[in-house]
């Protein structure tokens, strides 16, 4: 029993944090927005050099061969930087899905390209059916009931669905599902999509943790610098308590997300429950922090020009991603209230 990260894992986190704070600045994000995109090929190539898209790609396919325990801290950093790249679909979901499909040809074709930064893979799961960055994807993995379909983007109709967060560009994908596109079905397809959902929701939860941390930092910095009545507004107890409440929510979401990463990496039987708990806790913390951070910033925070909303929009849109909180709460409720549920002390890490 050891609930801490290794030095290597923490070092990778710091490395990515430093990289993103230099390369994924608000200016870079806004430039992409202004040009009607969120993906920046040069940034993606640099991320590939660090190993980010191929984190979960096996070493046999030229990837990093890591697990969700390694990657969870990196997704936190993506959230802290409001990284507008399709890391969840491509790195967290598509790579392991391609491994688990067991189709050697498909895996051999796409996994090395993912790791090398040469392929973006969009994923459409029915729980959040619009596909992020479908227009820049090289391959689409799409759900039709139990079936997994691998679809070439140029054979599908991709219709932009303008939405609230310019960093999350959504598309409706219409395609002809058939023998040519079907790569899994039945029980196999069902379990592949269940695993994909857990991985997507976990990565979104980790990004929400990072975004929440950043929202609190931005608000605390602003409260220290902004003067009213002759002193920093951060010296007022009302403001202090708002931000302290955000910090409490954040620090009690974080270990839930880390445990979910462990459960997914180790295929613990309750992993879906753990992921849903993580998504709920992280999204709740992020929603709360975005409201409080806006309030601390006052009218300035309500402008397009101030950078705060880059993270507020991440908090809102990541809550939508990979199952909203009502979906995940229902999953937890079903599990906790079922007759066979074994609750109480001593059962957190062991089902008994």
């Amino acid at each position: 029993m050891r609930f801490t990260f290794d030095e290597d894992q923490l070092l990778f986190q710091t490395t990515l944090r430093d990289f993103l704070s230099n390369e994924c600045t608000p200016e870079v994000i806004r430039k992409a927005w202004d040009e009607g995109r969120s993906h920046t090929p040069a940034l993606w190539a640099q991320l590939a050099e660090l190993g980010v898209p191929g984190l979960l790609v096996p070493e046999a396919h030229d990837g990093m061969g890591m697990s969700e325990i390694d990657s969870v801290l990196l997704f936190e950093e993506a959230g802290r930087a409001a990284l507008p790249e399709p890391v969840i679909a491509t790195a967290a979901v598509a790579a392991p899905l391609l491994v688990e499909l067991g189709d050697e040809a498909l895996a051999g074709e796409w996994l090395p390209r993912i790791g090398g930064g040469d392929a973006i893979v969009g994923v459409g799961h029915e729980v959040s059916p619009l596909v992020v960055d479908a227009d820049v994807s090289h391959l689409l993995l799409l759900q039709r009931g139990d079936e997994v379909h691998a679809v070439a983007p140029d054979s599908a109709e991709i219709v932009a669905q303008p939405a609230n967060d310019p960093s999350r560009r959504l598309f409706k994908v219409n395609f002809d599902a058939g023998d040519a596109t079907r790569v899994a079905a039945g029980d196999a397809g069902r379990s592949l999509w269940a695993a994909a959902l857990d991985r997507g929701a976990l990565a979104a939860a980790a990004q929400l943790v990072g975004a929440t941390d950043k929202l609190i930092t931005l608000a605390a910095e602003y409260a220290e610098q902004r003067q009213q009545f002759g002193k920093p507004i951060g010296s007022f107890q009302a403001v202090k308590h708002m931000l302290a409440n955000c910090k409490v929510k954040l620090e009690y979401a974080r270990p839930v997300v880390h445990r979910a990463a462990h459960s997914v990496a180790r295929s613990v039987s309750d992993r879906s429950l753990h992921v849903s708990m993580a998504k709920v806790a992280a999204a709740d913390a992020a929603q709360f922090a975005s409201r409080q951070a806006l309030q601390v910033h006052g009218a300035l925070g309500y402008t397009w020009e101030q950078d705060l909303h880059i993270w507020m929009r991440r908090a809102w849109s990541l809550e939508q991603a990979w199952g909203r909180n009502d979906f995940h709460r229902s999953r937890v409720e079903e599990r906790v209230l079922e007759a066979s549920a074994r609750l109480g002390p001593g059962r957190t890490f062991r089902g008994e």
Partner: protein
Amino acid sequence: MDLVYTAEQEAFRKEARTWLEANVPSRPLKSFDTKEGFEEHREWEKQLQAGGFAMVPWPVEYGGRGANLLEWLVFEEEYFRAKAPARVNQNGIFLLGPTIMEYGTPEQKARFLPKMASSEEVWAQGWSEPNAGSDMANIQATAIRDGDHFVINGQKTWASRGAYAHWLFGMFRTDPDSERHRGLSFILCPLDAPGITVRPIEKLNHKAAFAEVFFDDARVSVDHLLGEEGKGWNVSMSTAGFERGLMLRSPARFQDTAAKLVALYKENEGSCDPGLKRRVVDCWMRAEAYTLDTYRTVSRLLEGGKIGAEASLNKIFWSELDVEMHEVALEILGWRAELLPQASEAQGVGEWLDGYIFALAGPIYAGTNEIQRNIIAERILGLPRK
């Protein structure tokens, strides 16, 4: 990261479970807020000590088991699972004990810890004064050195367990010219010393659980000074760290309440507001989150980390969770919610009202939650003091 118990930890859990199943009294003890209940609880502590389970994480030489904090968490889980009695000496064993281990002299450790471990000596806290509550640095009780004794004058209040305890620990002003948190010393006082008068105060539940303690030229040996003279504030911060989180409020008690709340909801699902489902499950998730955070903290401590201001995060989280769980339970109970345990129509559910009244103290003691929020804002988030 490896969230799986080792074979040794599982074996220890089994040993603890077996012992507790064989030894936990079949009927609940009387409240330790009554004299009779207090003595019943001391008897239980003696039995626990004889079984080798009183102080799981303490060194063997001080009456402990010499296990680490992870095993202690496992023990706590089994303790609550077995519905074992509340720990009457919690001020001593969970708060003062670790502080003595950190700051005590070898003589003090040998003198105080074993008797604390067996609850031969039960401890009360003496932090607050009539004019030093949230503003603890405003302590006015003095302890003036006279040869090998301190002569103590002043008043402490809200001394938990003060009504029946044998000893009291607290902070006193040893430098009468000092101000605020300078010049304070951490002193251990025998409550039977001449010049000390204890006046019990009844709590919201009508039981005499805490007390006012008056010092009128009470003489206490300088051997009972813990840490350096004038450095009591630092020593007390260590105790407060234990009180706000890890030791006093291990997660098992909240998981136990959360599981009972889920069971209560299931029994009453047909008759209560369906909107309560979400709050019930939310409580359960928060109790799990508290558990996960505690395992994370313990893992960090075992790797050489320290508890700092983040104990204030714990304190807010568990105290608000405890109130919420009981509020939800009372809503589920409907018209029975106001009944005391002895009411025949209460049918065993009166415990929730008892628990609710106890939970209401949580956001107040160990430093009010408002003070904890100030600490988080200033010491963790770096906001300006003024």
